[in-house]
């Protein structure tokens, strides 16, 4: 790595004692010698193991659940169903008043994706819990499922989630989050060229070394300590408090040392049911995802579809950009309504475009609920935007890097979501990339600056 201190030296005070120093990490020796304690290193006498019975269907009505054989299985201590969960229908963003509650801790009457949790089995050993889970009999009436976002948005499509009433999230702005800036149709009318292209991604797994999980211990004083690898301690505690209808003062969360998150550990999935198990049995409970559960059950990065229509001038200026983004939330909201909204604010990218129209939709389908992941609401948008930029440059016969200089945002430029640009540095990054990659651009671009006189 090379630190290029010559850029922005006029606005930076160097020479600090501790900041800017490449100090060795104080936690590294523990990590590399295996001495760092993670949640799964907690082991308590009498600890039970929780395994889930999961839906084999993408969409089905539950006619009945028979747990009698599972309960008789040797080593099984308790079997939990929806009726054991005090506040079974929840949504995590309710903490910031983003509803409606749309997801069940344990399925009640219906399953909406293959892999959805239906029954929780607590056993003396992992094996006992797993074997007993296989003995739970669930009678399903399979329903038509929808997997394709466009199909889901058509009239007459199977309804994925009754709590929403339609297959998209209803924002206060309507069926999508909107950004309107300038007059996009006037921009297209004046453009020399128009290019409309569609981009698509597929769900992506966080792939942390340590799978999602927790260990819960009753403290004997009506309090429960939850050792967890959540990325958000109080967010998880407060959601658990709602789901379990327990005062937050009864809950003690210990964590903060996690073997990789990447956004995959901000859903509140394992803690509430494990705490409930500990409460109902009076024994410690461990609930740890297998690698298969981590990959196919825990939320992935959403698949997205991004349609970009641009109006561009022969001289390289983009004069209009219209973006329609679709986020595949799967069967439940989790963080997806937020991610789609974050995308609306991110488009049209780090470029100054006078006429912008953005619509971002959060769409429900019968697949594993997606949620946050590194680059949430932005990563796939950047893929689409930057491939589109390459196509536009080639369309007008311009060097792709020079084309970006022409449109790059600078200090003071108004963004489409009506925030003035501050602290821009895109131009300088491109100048340095031009040098480092030996990709020469015209001198006038190398002389540009993100600063504006008087700004």
């Amino acid at each position, binding site marked *: 790595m090379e*630190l*290029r201190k010559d*850029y*922005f030296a006029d606005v*930076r005070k160097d020479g600090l*004692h501790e*900041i*800017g*120093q490449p100090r060795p*990490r*104080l936690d590294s020796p523990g990590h590399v010698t295996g001495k760092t304690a993670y949640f799964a290193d907690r082991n308590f006498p009498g600890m039970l193991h929780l395994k889930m019975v999961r839906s084999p269907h993408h969409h089905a009505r539950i006619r009945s659940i028979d747990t009698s054989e599972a309960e008789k299985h040797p080593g099984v201590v308790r079997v939990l169903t929806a009726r054991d969960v005090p506040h079974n229908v929840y949504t995590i*963003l309710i903490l*910031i008043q983003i509803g409606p509650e749309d997801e069940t801790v344990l399925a009640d009457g219906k399953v909406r994706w293959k892999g959805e949790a239906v029954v929780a089995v607590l056993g003396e050993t992992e094996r006992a819990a797993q074997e007993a889970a296989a003995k739970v009999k669930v009678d399903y009436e399979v329903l038509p499922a929808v997997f394709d976002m466009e199909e889901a948005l058509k009239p007459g499509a199977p309804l994925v989630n009754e709590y929403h009433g339609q297959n998209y999230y209803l924002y*206060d*702005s309507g069926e999508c989050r909107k950004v*309107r*800036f300038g007059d996009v149709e006037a921009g297209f009318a004046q453009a020399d060229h128009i290019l409309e292209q*569609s981009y*698509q*991604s*597929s*769900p992506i*797994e966080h*792939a942390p070394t340590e799978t999602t999980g927790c260990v819960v211990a009753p403290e004997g004083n009506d309090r429960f300590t939850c050792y967890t690898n959540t*990325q*958000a*301690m*109080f967010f998880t505690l407060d959601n658990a408090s709602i789901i379990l209808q327990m005062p937050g003062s009864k809950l003690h969360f*210990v*964590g*903060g040392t*996690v073997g990789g998150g990447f956004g995959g550990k*901000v859903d509140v999935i394992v803690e509430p049911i494990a705490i409930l198990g500990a409460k109902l049995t009076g024994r410690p409970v461990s609930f740890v995802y297998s690698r*298969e559960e981590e*990959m196919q059950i825990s939320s992935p990065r959403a*698949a997205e579809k991004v349609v970009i229509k641009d109006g561009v001038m022969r001289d390289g200026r983009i004069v209009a950009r219209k973006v329609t983004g679709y986020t595949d939330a799967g069967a439940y909201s989790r963080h997806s309504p*937020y991610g789609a909204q974050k995308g609306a604010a991110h488009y049209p*990218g780090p470029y100054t475009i006078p006429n912008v129209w953005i619509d971002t939709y959060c769409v429900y389908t019968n697949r*594993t609920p997606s949620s946050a992941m*590194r*680059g*949430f609401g932005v*990563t*796939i948008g950047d*893929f*689409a*935007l*930057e491939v589109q930029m390459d196509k536009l440059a080639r369309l007008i016969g311009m060097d792709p*890097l020079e084309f970006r200089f022409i449109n790059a*945002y600078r200090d003071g430029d108004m963004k489409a979501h*009506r*925030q003035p640009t501050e602290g*821009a540095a*895109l131009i*300088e*990054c*491109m100048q*340095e990339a031009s040098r*480092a*990659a030996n990709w020469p651009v015209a001198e006038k671009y190398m002389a540009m600056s993100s600063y504006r006189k008087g700004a």
Partner: protein
Amino acid sequence: MAIRRGRGVAAINYPTGMNLGGDPTQALVHSTPTGNFMVTLSSVDLGQGMKQIMAQICAETIGVPTDRVVVDTADTDTGPHCMGTFASRGTHRAGNAVIQAAKEARQVMLEVAAEELEVNASDLETDGQGNIQVKGAPQKSISIFDVALSAHFKRGRSISGRGMFLIPRSYPEKETGAMKPSTCYAHACTVAEVEVDDETGEVTVLTVKNVFEIGRALNPKMVEQQLVGGSWMGISHALYETTEPYYPNRDHGGTDFNQYLMPGPGDLAQTEIIVLERPSADGPFGAKGPGEMCANPQIPAVANAVFDAVGVRIDTLPITPERILRALKAQTTG
């Protein structure tokens, strides 16, 4: 049939934080009787080095070496509230809270030292080595060890501080979308060079040259580890990863690392990282959040490089050999 070379570029920015829901983090700082400092948080270290960075931020602010600071996180019985570690917010939000708490503790520390040295607190400075001295007269000094002992056993002072950083919630305007969803932006530009085998569709990323602007490299070694890892993840997203290879078809999802592919040691591109620092107005020592941003520009840069190499656009991720071969076939037959 041939191995074809191409290169592509992408430039991006990335927001820090998530204030569409309100974005708070708190911190507490106190000294031990012998002048070590405890930072108490409920922020989560995902392995990226949160604890180390908070220790360095506290140390710089108080004016002691980093090894005099211990970070205690995350226990909800002791640590004050943190929204969580996501949205590239950890260093920025928690760092600001730690600075505020450490400043308050530093002020008490200087007041106790002033009493011991019989000078005004405003005339004192720290030397960064564990001592407090009179500005312009460094021979008149006292160790922080002795100041802490005095505070605890003689003066009855608590060398401690409370820190709070809050970005208030922004509500998007319904019709225009006017909103303030984040604070400072990090930036990047990546140039990727690839080889594409037009017989097998296989892509080899030869080099990635990443320029990242991150506000301030608080610990350059840790910045490097995060940026190199992010660059790898971007290539992995571009060419390898998905839980649903035939999306929207739900079948064929990988269930372990044999089926869910990511680039291994033999697939690593030659990776160059260049860092620029334009300090942000509201970041701790100017830092921005580069944690997510660093994995984004490689994806379009690789996609553009593939087009440069073989003349087909793969607009669906991941860019698998199958998709490349199908596009090449369509190109020749079309």
